[in-house]
């Protein structure tokens, strides 16, 4: 039995294992981040923070279906000032903490980055790809190569932390956008955000269930799309990829890593398998690597490419 090493370096951040809590799942408080870290996540991402507090969409904001989940939370968050109070002394969390920063224009991104600059975040993630929040992401035209370049450049000037740019699976030209981010100084690409949007209608009520009517699709339904995006990105860019979308087992994680991801993000998996999904995924990865004669996780990154 080879000795299994799951640890990995992502933009010079050392992770015990390649599982990361995706943004928007449980990342509202430091206490929850800590709990996720105690359940073996290699790193954690906070829920996205904007300049001003936001109540988000009305409920229902999250709903499940046979093949995954639909959500339109609408970026509810307490705003950068309150967030700066919440996320102090982040070394208590025990693993690297990634800040997720959103804005309706590039100046907002910068203001949030500056507002949290005194804290101990290990990296800044900027999602330019939410499919269901007016003023942000796709609904604000942030998912073009041009906008991506501009926002990333602005954030680049505002911080020396590693920058992860998070992309949408909807966009056919995902590789061009990733290249624009790379050119602007991004250190990694997070692929992908939720897909769609989609809609689920309650036929007795004759109404869409989500209050915002549509929401982003995540979970199992998203996985093949996310894997394809990562596979394409791996050929197109040089910076590492954080593969996100439908991962809830060790096999899923290995699939994503073979497609080209250096690490994986897990969101909906917390619903499928509980907060300890991170531990389960790591155990399953370890066992698979043992059975298949791999000792180092780095050696399988991009393994599915010719």
């Amino acid at each position, binding site marked *: 039995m080879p000795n299994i090493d799951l640890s990995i370096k992502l933009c010079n951040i050392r992770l015990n294992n390649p599982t990361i809590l995706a943004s928007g*799942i449980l990342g509202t408080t430091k206490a929850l981040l800590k709990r996720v870290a105690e359940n073996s996540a290699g790193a954690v991402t906070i829920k996205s923070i904007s300049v001003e507090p936001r109540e988000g969409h009305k409920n229902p904001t999250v709903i499940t279906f046979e093949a995954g989940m639909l959500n339109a939370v609408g970026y509810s968050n307490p705003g950068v000032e309150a967030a700066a109070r919440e996320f102090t002394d982040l070394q208590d969390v025990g693993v690297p903490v990634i800040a997720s920063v959103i804005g309706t224009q590039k100046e907002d991104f910068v203001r949030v980055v500056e507002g949290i600059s005194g804290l101990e975040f290990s990296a800044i993630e900027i999602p330019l790809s939410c499919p269901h929040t007016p003023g942000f992401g796709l609904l604000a035209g942030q998912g073009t190569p041009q906008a991506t370049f501009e926002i990333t450049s602005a954030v680049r000037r505002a911080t020396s932390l590693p920058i992860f740019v998070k992309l949408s699976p909807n966009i056919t030209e995902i590789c061009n956008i990733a290249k624009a981010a790379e050119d602007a100084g991004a250190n990694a690409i997070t692929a992908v955000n939720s897909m769609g949007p989609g809609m689920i209608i309650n036929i007795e009520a004759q109404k869409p*269930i989500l209050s915002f009517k549509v929401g982003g699709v995540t979970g199992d339904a998203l996985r093949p799309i996310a894997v394809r995006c990562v596979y394409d990105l791996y050929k197109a860019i040089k910076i590492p990829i954080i593969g996100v979308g439908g991962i809830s087992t060790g096999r899923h994680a290995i699939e994503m890593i073979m497609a080209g991801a250096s690490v994986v993000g897990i969101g909906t998996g917390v619903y499928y398998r509980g907060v300890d999904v991170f531990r389960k995924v790591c155990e399953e990865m370890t066992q698979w690597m043992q059975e298949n004669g791999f000792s180092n996780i780095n050696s399988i990154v991009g393994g599915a490419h010719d």
Partner: protein
Amino acid sequence: MIEQPMMVKICDIIEESSTVKTFFFESNMQFEPGQFVMVWIPLLDEKPFTISYIQNNIFGISVLKRGLFTNALHAKKIGGTIGIRGPYGRGFSLQTNSNLCVIGGGIGMASLSAVIDRLNLTLKVHQGNVTVIQGTRTSAEIIYQKRFKNMNLCTEDGSVGFKGTTVKLFGELLKKQRFKQVFACGPEMMLYKVVELCREYCIECEVSLDRYIKCGFGICGQCDCSGHRVCIDGPVFNMEELSRMEDFGKTIMTKTGERVIY
């Protein structure tokens, strides 16, 4: 578990007090005392309510009229429909062979009423008895008067029963009676004091917490209380868990997700 809202017909409505109505509906869901459902009014909102009546295939939720959503619910008539998903959460762990005390403050009584039913049912068979304390501001707010005999009532204005808070009355009772376990639901400061008293008297205690609920199944993080998700890890927590929850009795979480110290 029903993951997408199922539209159910309101088959009966009881006016429990001037401000509380119970809405009954039929369903073949399975509920444990203390669990809640998400109630959906299409185009309006979706909010959590504890199941207050568990009777074969008929269930009830008791709703305090206080804002937009509960006003809309109170406007519903028999035959009207609401969406239900759940059950969610971890209910009370009932020990049915001891002397027990149930303490409800305000609408918190709704979360406990299914517990009392279950206890009354099983206490007939087993040893033990149950003491119920219900506290409100005034007599008009008291609920379940016909449903539960021999409740220990208390009102802040003294219009009926003991004049004072549930905590004060509980303190009085503690001087005379020994309880094995306490179940409580109500304003968090009340719960905090009940837990303090229980700790002092070495009594087991479980309380049902209240946080702003969005998803209901542990994904969005909106209902955090010191790393515990009220919607799925709770809403019922025991004393051991509460002792590790710094936020208990000290903070609330607003709709934006801000943790505010009160």
